[in-house]
């Protein structure tokens, strides 16, 4: 509770300085890169698609609807990556997210198909008020960033070289400077595969005494003998 109170306090003291910043920012003449990165309509259409898809994703009660709108969001994001001349990343985004991860999500949703009775988590009015305040603060900061000039972030002018974002450029980094992270990611994926198998494995009913844990296996060597004898007989039958 003290943490929340101190957060509130810092937000309250931050607001006047924020308003002062906004008032200051209005007087700075705007300096933006005169060369646009992409056609404006493309950005706005794709941004609207992406944000709408994300909003639908977190508000749907039906999980399949949420997954499908998440697919739309990922396609919009892939197109935005292409606008940022990251063509290889756009293709990988479609393959990995809109393909593999979404199939995994749809599969799990189909397995655990449960409607939830009360989807929203916040019930206490204090938390609701705090959340609303945080969202309003965020929107104010976004508006400040959008509509008032700031000192420009460091960037190079002009369009990037034509092979920027191509497969060969990325591969050059992965096989020289980024070789260690590249190999580490392969080990990480291996660990994730093993972890997923271990987490979802069901313990099968033991079909033989050898499947039991060691302390529950019969001490009697005769049972062991009989089992291996049966195996040998089976082998013999198969052989002849």
């Amino acid at each position: 509770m003290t943490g929340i109170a101190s957060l509130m306090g810092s937000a309250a003291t931050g607001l006047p300085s924020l308003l002062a910043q906004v008032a200051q920012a209005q007087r700075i003449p705007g300096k933006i890169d005169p060369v646009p990165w992409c056609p404006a309509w493309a950005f706005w259409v794709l941004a609207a698609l992406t944000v709408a898809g994300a909003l639908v994703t977190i508000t749907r009660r039906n999980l399949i609807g949420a997954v499908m709108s998440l697919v739309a969001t990922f396609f919009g994001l892939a197109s935005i990556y292409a606008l940022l001349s990251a063509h290889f990343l756009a293709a990988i985004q479609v393959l990995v997210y809109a393909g593999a991860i979404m199939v995994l999500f749809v599969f799990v949703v189909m397995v655990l198909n449960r409607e939830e009775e009360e989807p929203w988590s916040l019930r206490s009015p204090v938390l609701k008020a705090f959340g609303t305040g945080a969202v309003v603060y965020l929107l104010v900061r976004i508006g400040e960033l959008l509509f008032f000039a700031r000192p420009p972030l460091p960037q190079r002018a002009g369009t990037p070289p034509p092979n920027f974002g191509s497969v060969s450029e990325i591969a050059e980094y992965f096989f020289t400077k980024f070789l260690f992270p590249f190999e580490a990611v392969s080990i990480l994926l291996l660990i994730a595969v093993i972890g997923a198998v271990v987490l979802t494995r069901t313990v099968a009913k033991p079909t033989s005494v050898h499947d039991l844990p060691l302390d529950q296996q019969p001490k009697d060597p005769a049972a062991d003998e009989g089992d291996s004898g049966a195996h040998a007989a089976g082998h013999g039958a198969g052989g002849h």
Partner: protein
Amino acid sequence: MDFLTALMTIGLNHFLVLGLVIFGIGIMGVFLRRNALITLMSIELMLNAGNLTLLSFARAQHDMRGQALAFLVIAVAAAEAAIGLAIVVGLFRNRKSTDLDELNLLRF
């Protein structure tokens, strides 16, 4: 600054704000929803917003390292989705529910 110019001249700030908005929607999904699957989807949204920011800065600096980093983030996100869904399946097997508010065994 002319409002129309800001609307029509797409630059670094536009992409950064888009990433911020998507990240905020992801955070709202994590905080507000009780379903574990929706929470995982919101985490994917947040990772994608981070990727968008990395790619925007890579484009601004004409530097390929941002794109290499985004590729690594995609690989980590795939691993995270696999493990997270495995945990949800195991959870459902034990508790017959994917409601995160019922998982209060370790809550103080």
